């Protein structure tokens, strides 16, 4: 990590942490102003995070789409971007930050612990389909993490600490939002898997090879396909659907880290 990129990123992380604290103060002590500060902190963090990504992009000559560090840098950025997207629909839901920012920090923290070498794109990654594949992957997994975060809020909202969370939208709105994010994530995941299949066809001559990451993508696709099926045709909603959303998300995370007890990658020697 070059120095500027690192400084910007850590300042951004600082902004995110401060926003969580501000939102917590706003929630527990019912201070409107703290929530406003929370929003400014997260905006500050997001701007620095964006500039940090841009710095890296300029140095490496490609978007941050390879290796664990770059994935987490870009992935956490997408999650925060989705937070701002929700604000377009529901402007007064800053407190969502309490659920969403920790998810983004978890993703970012996981990547920061890995090497952040500045490398040019190796030949297998020099495909236009890579951009489609990776961008939609982050839209998909970003949406699923946001859906899981909202599902946690939903359960808290209808559960024992509902009094503290009255400032959040009504549970029915949260339920609709979970559904929207899963739907959007599922479309993105379908595009991601499709772009990956086209890329694989160009790279190895076959579109599917049951390699660990491909199998995991199919597991994710089936998981959220079943989620949608249960919601649309069998009428799952409310707490039952919220639990399903959380379990689905946790399941795909565990499955990813548990792949054959060894995390495999697509590419071979080249």
């Amino acid at each position, binding site marked *: 990590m070059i120095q500027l990129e690192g400084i910007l990123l850590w300042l951004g992380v600082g902004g995110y942490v401060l926003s969580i604290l501000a939102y917590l103060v706003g929630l527990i002590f019912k201070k409107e102003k703290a929530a406003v500060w929370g929003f400014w902190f997260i905006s500050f963090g997001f701007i620095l995070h964006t500039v940090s990504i841009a710095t890296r992009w300029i140095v490496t000559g490609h978007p941050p789409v390879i290796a664990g560090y770059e994935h987490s840098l870009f992935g956490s950025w997408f999650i925060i971007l989705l937070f701002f997207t929700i604000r377009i629909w529901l402007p007064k839901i800053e407190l969502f930050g309490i659920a969403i920012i920790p998810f983004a920090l978890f993703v970012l923290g996981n990547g920061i612990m890995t090497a952040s070498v500045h490398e040019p794109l190796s030949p297998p990654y020099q495909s236009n389909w890579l951009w489609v594949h990776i961008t939609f992957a982050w839209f998909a997994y970003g949406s699923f993490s946001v859906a899981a975060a909202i599902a946690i809020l939903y359960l808290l909202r209808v559960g024992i600490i509902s009094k503290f969370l009255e400032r959040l939208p009504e549970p029915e709105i949260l339920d609709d939002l979970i*559904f929207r994010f899963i739907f959007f994530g599922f*479309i993105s995941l379908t595009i991601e898997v499709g772009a990956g299949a086209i890329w694989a*066809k160009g790279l190895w001559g076959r*579109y*599917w090879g049951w390699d660990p990451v491909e199998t995991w993508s199919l597991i994710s696709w089936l998981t959220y396909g079943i989620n949608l099926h*249960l919601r649309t045709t069998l009428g799952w909603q409310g707490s039952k659907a919220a639990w399903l959303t959380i379990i689905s998300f946790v399941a795909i995370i565990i499955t990813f880290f548990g792949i054959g007890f060894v995390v495999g990658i697509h590419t071979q020697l080249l």
Partner: protein
Amino acid sequence: MWRIFISRRFAVSLLVLMLGLLILAILLPNPSILSPEEIRTIKEQRPYLFKITEILGIQGLTASPFFFVLPFLIFISTAICTWTRLQSRLKSGGAEIEGRVFKAAKEVTVKGEAKIVRSRFLKAFSSPLWSVQENIKEEIPILIAHRGRFGFWGSMLFHLGLLTVLLATIVTGLTLFTGEMLLTEGYPIPLKEEGFLKVWRRPFFGMKLPDEAITLEEFKRVFKDNKYPIDYIATVRVGEKDGFSFLKDIRVNDPLKYQGLQYNIDRYGFAPSFVIKGKDGKVLFDGDINLVLVGGQEDSFQIPDTDIGITVRFYPDFVMTKDGPRTRSDILNNPVFSIKVTREGIVMKQGFLYMGQEAEMTDIMITYTGIKYWVHILVARDWGAPVLFIGLVFLVIGLIARLLFYEKGLNVVINAEGENCIVKVSGYTKYFPAFFEREIKKIIEEVTK
């Protein structure tokens, strides 16, 4: 039986079963990504796990007939369900919304004449997505607005996409050819089956391979900052028996496509040229050795008609460290070989050999005369791929149409009461009931402004 197949619970059960099997399979060790040593360790230390892996691991599972039955049942269930829904839709002419809908209703008093209130509502429905009809019953205007007629067709397209994708897997299963070739610079290799290292899969109905040869003319690697590989170019000549041939540069994402087959570079390695002479000066070996171990840098071979074995380790950018010989990079800055000569498995002599150097090793003379490359090529033909891509396009368009154009409708009954109107707004939506209630509220707010 029919009822079972059209049951949505059955469809979900099939998907859950498939998901469960895949989760179990992915958590088990996957021999395709493990080294032979790791596989042997599992086999010896945890034989029960190895047995389970053979049956339920991803390789075993996807090759088992059961795994073909499951998608087949999903295909049948989806096809029947789609057909049933289509039939009932065509019968009703789209008048009924299938499945569950959410309902909402609100009653408000609006200031103004019925005529003005009516025109305000019509304005609220002015988006081209709304289709509005008006009925007047006993002089009471009733506005019926609905949108989302594409939603159903989106769902149909999604199902069609799913069926197409499943069909593609069948087409792939019947037509897939996969194999691998190893090309060394300068050596023509037949494109026929005898030129393959291994043919992994043959199409069900057989296929004819080109009756020509392929020659790796040159392999080039491009590095950035003398460190990072950014391009691999294999220039191949494909020639026919009658003498016609053409050249093609194969790159990692730019394969050779010839007579329905695709040739991709998969990996590469070094192929040093050696001349080995006996004590009497007789040439025992004069050729290139493909080093296929340790990332294409190491291998062992036996000199023909002798009991002499040679193990070669290549260092493209040789440096001697306190931990022994190493290579600084993959670039040919200082190519050096370490050579180990064995006789009946016993090491007789070992040492280093530089480019052009001749060394006496026991009773043989070894000369390292040059370096070439070998390239491992994956060969494939799959007629299912275009079918799959069409299916994926259907899936995506279908899903987007379902999300954007889901069915919802509003009935507005305007009752004039003096200077005011009592307006009853009732409606239905296929999805997102809470957002729908907000939408009704917003429309009412606009009208009562």
